[in-house]
């Protein structure tokens, strides 16, 4: 018995120029915030952009977007609804606010299913919001989408950066391209990770300040793009646009 889904995935993604996974071994560093704001920023600049939330058991992007009362359309697959200019796909269409207790094998299967049936159409960028850890989601992305590029998010904390280092080691070993590292939630006095990033041979894409205003902007996209975080991500977006795919 052959699983026919795998064979069609690259065809399904063939209309997409660049696929960027916003990733971090560590949880709570701002992956969802960066992924959502980056996608919105790229869309505002006139690019066609998709956002795919694959943190299936703890999705956040729908809350940041304030996405409500939207559903994909069934049409030769599933066509994602447009939310604030983004072709937006998430498991929440199918589970709502209910818990989705999925083991790794289920995460893998759900990811493959959505990659098989989602009709993204023509996009300049597909931004993928990842779960933390080094598990099924990242291993499947690497396996199924060879041309994926990683954008790594960390905080200045040793706990985050030590974890990120392991993920970078894994990606390097797998020869996956890394666009660079974003240092999120930087406090004024915090010792940065610019030097450390360089030592890993990675591009430092910039620091995003810790901005308490961000909380109030959750669910309000216009407000979000106007926070210090939104403004900084505009600069980071430029680097992302310019980045050539490069193996680390």
């Amino acid at each position, binding site marked *: *018995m052959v*699983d026919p*889904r795998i064979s069609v995935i690259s065809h399904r993604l063939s209309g997409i120029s660049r696929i960027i996974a916003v990733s971090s071994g560590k949880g709570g560093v701002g992956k969802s915030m960066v992924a959502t704001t980056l996608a919105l920023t790229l869309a505002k600049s006139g690019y066609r952009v998709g956002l795919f939330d694959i943190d299936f058991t703890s999705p956040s992007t729908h809350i940041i977007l304030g996405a409500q009362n939207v559903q994909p359309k069934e049409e030769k697959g*599933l066509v994602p609804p447009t939310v604030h200019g983004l072709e937006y796909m998430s*498991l929440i269409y*199918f*589970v709502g606010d209910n818990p*989705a207790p999925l083991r790794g094998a289920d995460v893998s299967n759900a990811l493959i*299913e959505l990659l098989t049936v989602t009709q993204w159409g023509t996009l300049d960028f597909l931004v993928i919001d990842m779960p933390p850890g080094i598990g099924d989601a990242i291993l499947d992305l690497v396996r199924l989408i060879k041309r994926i590029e990683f954008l790594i998010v960390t905080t200045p904390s040793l706990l985050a950066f030590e974890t990120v280092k392991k993920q970078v080691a894994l990606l390097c070993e797998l020869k996956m391209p890394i666009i660079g590292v974003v240092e999120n939630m930087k406090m004024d006095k915090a010792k940065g990770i610019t030097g450390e990033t360089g030592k890993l041979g990675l591009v430092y894409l910039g620091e995003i300040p810790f901005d308490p205003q961000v909380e109030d902007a959750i669910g309000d996209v216009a407000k979000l793009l106007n926070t210090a975080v939104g403004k900084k991500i505009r600069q980071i977006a430029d680097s992302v646009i310019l980045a050539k795919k490069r193996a680390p």
Partner: protein
Amino acid sequence: MHEWALAEAILTSAKQIAEQEKLKEVTEVTIKVGELQQVEPPILRFALSQMKSDIFKSAKFRILKAKSTLKCRVCGTAWQFNFKKLDKATAEAIHFVPEVAHTYIKCPKCGSPDFEIVCGRGVWLQDIKGAK
């Protein structure tokens, strides 16, 4: 008609296999659809017939239905999934992504959502017959 996307996957995969096996023409493709995903054979068949081309021109599609067995990881109970009990929205969610069954279905004995989908999950390519 999201079955169209699954049908395309079946044809893409079947074509790859036919090429590996150096088949010039495929005469029969056997597909297994699991009950959990509630893919309707007539809809799938229609999608396949619309899309089939070149080596599949004269292919027949046999679509077999597989019962769906779920097995609780906590208490070991195995049971047949009965999708008739589900409301329409839930059934549709599971139709699109079978794994969301873990959100809606519980073990009939102990109430746990931690069950294994032992068989009958989605769409499988079971066999291909053809001529070299």
